[in-house]
């Protein structure tokens, strides 16, 4: 690793000031499970940072909280273990807990943060599709204050986000799920744990009696960023759920995504997996919506 100066700010303001002062030469560090790996690589995609700003001691970024009026707040510094083990997330935001529980091993989950997963902006980031399906918002803090952005607009491309160099992701806000909503996330990987998604699919269905009132489908690893599948959602809304409907919606989501071919699979293979996984996640979300 190239050498750098290490800063350990103890407030969000101090962290932002450090980023402002050192500009492009500085890099925020959370759990390090992406950044430290990248800094060890000889040919890094980015210039090796000469200032590391550790977010470990910034209290404003930590923890998970929930209220019936405000919904869920996940601090950018919350670890995947905290999210996967949170009783409220497991109960009301099931797909988010499922995404967090898939991030590497126990060791990885204990270090990896939600903020790091989102800011690293891998198309395969496992926490992204479930958060998109719940219509989460990113809360961004910079020198001129806070701004909120729909998570969909946060991702700009592989490794690219809407954050300026002197901004931090402070937290993610997730609205209260309506009554009658069920959600699910899973991914396809050759190995169950310790692998990167070939395709990830999150689904959230809100039932009004026997009709689907609202449908959200979000996909990972099949486009330059994690994405919603709006046409599949439209095909589902207002309809009565059935295997035929889910098969049709799955065809639509496979058609509307834009997978690439790489060593983990060809584009055609990925579309096929999107179809299979979308059907499976819709069925799972429906079961959960019905069992309340």
């Amino acid at each position, binding site marked *: 690793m190239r*050498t*750098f100066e290490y800063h350990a700010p103890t407030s969000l303001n101090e962290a932002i000031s450090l980023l402002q002062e050192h500009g492009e030469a500085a890099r925020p560090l959370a759990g390090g499970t992406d950044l430290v790996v990248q800094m060890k690589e000889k040919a890094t995609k980015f210039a090796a940072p000469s200032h590391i700003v550790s977010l470990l001691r910034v209290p404003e970024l930590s923890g998970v909280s929930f209220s019936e009026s405000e919904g869920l707040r996940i601090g950018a510094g919350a670890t995947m*273990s905290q999210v996967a083990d949170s009783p409220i997330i497991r109960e009301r935001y099931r797909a988010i807990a499922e995404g967090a529980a898939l991030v590497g091993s126990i060791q990885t989950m204990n270090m990896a943060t939600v903020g790091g997963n989102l800011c690293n902006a891998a198309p395969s980031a496992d926490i992204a599709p479930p958060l998109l399906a719940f219509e989460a918002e990113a809360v961004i803090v910079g020198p001129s204050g806070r701004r909120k952005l729909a998570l969909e607009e946060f991702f700009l491309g592989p490794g690219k986000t809407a954050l300026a160099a002197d901004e931090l992701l402070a937290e993610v806000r997730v609205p209260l799920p309506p009554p009658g909503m069920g959600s699910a996330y899973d991914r396809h990987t050759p190995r169950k*744990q310790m692998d990167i998604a070939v395709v990830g699919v999150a689904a959230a269905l809100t039932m009004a009696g026997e009709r689907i009132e609202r449908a959200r489908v979000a996909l990972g690893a099949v486009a330059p960023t994690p994405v919603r599948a709006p046409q599949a959602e439209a095909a589902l809304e207002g309809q009565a759920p059935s295997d035929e409907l889910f098969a049709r919606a799955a065809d639509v989501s496979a058609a509307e995504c834009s997978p690439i071919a790489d060593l983990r699979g060809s584009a055609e293979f990925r579309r096929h997996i999107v179809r299979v996984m979308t059907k499976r996640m819709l069925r799972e979300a429906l079961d959960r919506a019905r069992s309340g």
Partner: protein
Amino acid sequence: MPKQLITLIVNGRRTEVAVEPRWTLLEMVREELRLSGSKEGCGTGDCGACSMIVDGRLVTSCLMLATQVDGRDVVTIEGLAKNGRLHPVQQAFIDTGGVQCGFCTPGMIMAAKSLLDRTPSPTLEEVREGLAGNLCRCTGYAKIYEAVMHAANAGK
């Protein structure tokens, strides 16, 4: 870059260490503290040979900077034996033959200890999951899982 002084607890003992900002926790423990039980297999979080317990949680020390453990509590494989007696998990690895070349063993034992701290009577499936971040090139895992189940039963 000048060294930075950090204070932490290593295996129950308060320790001050001067570290270079770019050192990982693993490098500091092996090269500065001379505790060489923890191994570096991959350096990228994939093999678990470097597993340590920081503030009660299992981590891969090859991805944590030494500066990040300032003020924290670190347990390495050297910290498990008490008063010359092996930890039950260590003893179980010996008794069941869960060790061949031994390279993965310190990490496996840390992961197993951490699992049993959380889940004292795990199912085989829970043992598999708890050790999924630890690779072994020798044993084929059966003996390792057996050792952990054995330690769990011995602890009852």
